[in-house]
């Protein structure tokens, strides 16, 4: 395939639709990570919880034949893993980072272990017949020429992901409990004196992040593909954490960061058909992540220096004029 066809395909509606599809499994864990991070418990186990969710969804759908029960089971499994993390961190004072790594390790080993027992295969679950979530064609929008192709016909999870961004925004900034959670993240001591139960708020935040990460995992195994693979999340949980940093801990920013990674991934898929070594092309999403993090960090640093200078200037001026003012 020539460069021209690749460029043409990048500017096609199909490509934009694929960006949306690839971004979805990053948006879910990123939103989960966001809620956990603003509450002061950055969840490092998103990756593992995604694997658990993906695995449970596939297996339950294969044995019950009902997609919705499977999704429910996946969510429950994700929440249980998140609560295990919460139990050890909040009650037994395990370092959050280490507990997160332990949960990841357990999820990785546990899913492969069970996969082998159930299917006799350690690589993937193609031996069992699992289901996928239905795709949704939007009634009116699908008839609009360009927009219809981009927006319609995605799996249910994709619409859910973007709706959840909206919900997370409403929850964190427009509800009482969301505000409490942010207070717990900003200053737990102050929140305690205001009568907020810090441990409970953090436990709930972890549980929500477990729900979202599990949904992200099921998006991989029940929509993106129709089977479970060993270590299926393949770093998406970590990219979700990167998105939280990059998006300045704001729902919209985090979503845009997740879409940026989806875009890089989609580009690397397209370039795969060119005559460039595939390994170099596969690096693109990860290099993009690092570059974006670096640019963001440098910018933040500059902004901080700028603020400090302004503060010093004001402070020194106040001292010089001898008028201590409120500002």
């Amino acid at each position, binding site marked *: 395939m020539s460069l021209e066809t690749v460029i043409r395909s990048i500017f096609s509606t199909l490509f934009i639709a694929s960006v949306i599809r690839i971004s979805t499994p990053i948006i879910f864990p990123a939103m989960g990570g966001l809620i956990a991070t603003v509450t002061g418990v950055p969840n490092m186990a998103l990756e593992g919880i995604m694997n658990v969710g993906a695995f449970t969804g596939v297996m339950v759908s294969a044995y019950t034949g009902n997609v919705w029960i499977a999704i429910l089971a996946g969510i429950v499994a994700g929440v249980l893993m998140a609560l295990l993390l919460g139990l*050890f961190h909040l009650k037994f*004072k*395990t370092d959050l980072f280490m507990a997160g790594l332990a949960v990841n390790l357990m999820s990785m080993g546990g899913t492969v272990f069970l996969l082998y027992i159930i299917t006799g295969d350690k690589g993937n679950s193609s031996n069992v017949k699992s289901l996928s979530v239905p795709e949704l064609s939007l009634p009116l929008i699908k008839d609009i020429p360009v927009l219809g192709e981009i927006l319609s016909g995605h799996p249910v999870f994709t619409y859910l992901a973007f709706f959840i961004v909206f919900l997370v925004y409403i929850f964190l900034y427009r509800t009482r409990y969301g505000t409490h959670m942010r207070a717990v993240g900003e200053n737990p001591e102050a929140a305690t004196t205001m009568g907020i139960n810090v441990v409970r708020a953090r436990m709930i935040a972890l549980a929500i992040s477990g729900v979202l990460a599990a949904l992200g995992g099921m998006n991989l195994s029940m929509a993106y593909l129709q089977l479970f693979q060993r270590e299926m999340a393949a770093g998406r949980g970590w990219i979700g954490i990167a998105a939280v940093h990059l998006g300045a801990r704001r729902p919209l920013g985090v979503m845009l960061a997740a879409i940026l990674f989806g875009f890089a991934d989609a580009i690397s898929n397209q370039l795969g058909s060119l005559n460039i070594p595939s390994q170099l092309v596969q690096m693109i999403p990860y290099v993009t992540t690092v570059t974006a993090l670096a640019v963001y960090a440098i910018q*933040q640093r500059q902004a901080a220096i700028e603020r400090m200078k302004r503060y010093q200037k004001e402070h020194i001026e106040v001292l010089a004029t001898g008028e201590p003012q409120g500002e």
Partner: protein
Amino acid sequence: MKSFLQSKGLRESLRIVLAVTVGLALGFIITLFVSEDPIGAYKAFLLGPLSRLNRIGDWLEESLTLILLGLTICIVFNASQWYIGVEGQMLLGAMASGCVILYLPLPILPRVILAFITAMLVAAIWGIIPAILKAYYKANELVTSLMFNTIAIKLFEYVLKNFIMHEKSRSVSSDMIPKELRLPTFIPDLPFLAGIREMWMKNTSVSIMVYIVIIAVIVVYYLLYKTPFGYELRTVGLNEKFARYGGININKTIILSIMVSGCFAAIAGVHLTLAIHNRLIQNMTSGLGFEGINIAILAGNNPLGVPVAGLLYGYLRAGSDVMERSSDVSRELVFVIQAMVLLLVTAERLLPTIQKRIAEIRQNNGNGNGKNKNAKNVKEGETNVA
């Protein structure tokens, strides 16, 4: 004072023994559910590594790599840097040493030494970017180092497929490294040891890396506890603000800690290339980097504890291999056990919480009058000791 120190150390080690026991017990319970012959499977798991000489050799070889990785993580964790780019550093170190060994026409000894040095340099340099981003710009080193791991894996595959691999060869790998360039066996070539040496070499390939690892453990201990750099590193790790107040150059310390730690990851990579695989192949590190974290944590970030933890985890890994080959239980069981041990070891408040709960139950029920409660009381006795 001395007895106090001893009692604290005793308490710590008892806690770890307890955690490992609970982890193994959990593993056995899981085995009971899934296996046709749980006792046989678990016996293979627990005793397998000792059953044959070549298995002992496998265990030791695996442990050497693990100890080096544990030391790597130990250094960065002592500085409270959550840098886990070990996997990438190890892989690129392996690649660098492999290239030097395969392509540089030098006499044997300088070539091997150069292989070590190149590997260490490459690994140290690979750590620089995440280190600078962390030190100067506060970019989350955990995320950047993980991204760098994936980039390193892709880079390794790229170089291997496009420059090192022969077009004719079927597997994605380099040529075998000639025998004389591999690391020699660790038993010296002395007349009275000839018999043992012969037998050992026939069964295993545990190399002089044993001595390098022992030296590495001592070097890391010395570096962390007896040098100004180590003091600065640990101070930054304990309290960054205090370190800054004390006039320590924090940025320099962070960057150096990551670069120095990379050198040990590189030695682990050299070990993979020159003693275990004897060539460069795809997936040669296969997730070993994360094991380093488990080991450092189990050792309480103390370099002297790392060899013990490394031997233990090497044993568990070797045992799980034997179990997989001789029974119907897959080796991934060991990850679940490791995760459980990790959680239990790092749970600082676990024992006090259990003690409190038991005391409450006791108060509510008066003296234990059921068998169950007696068992709990016994357990409390244990925890008090711990």
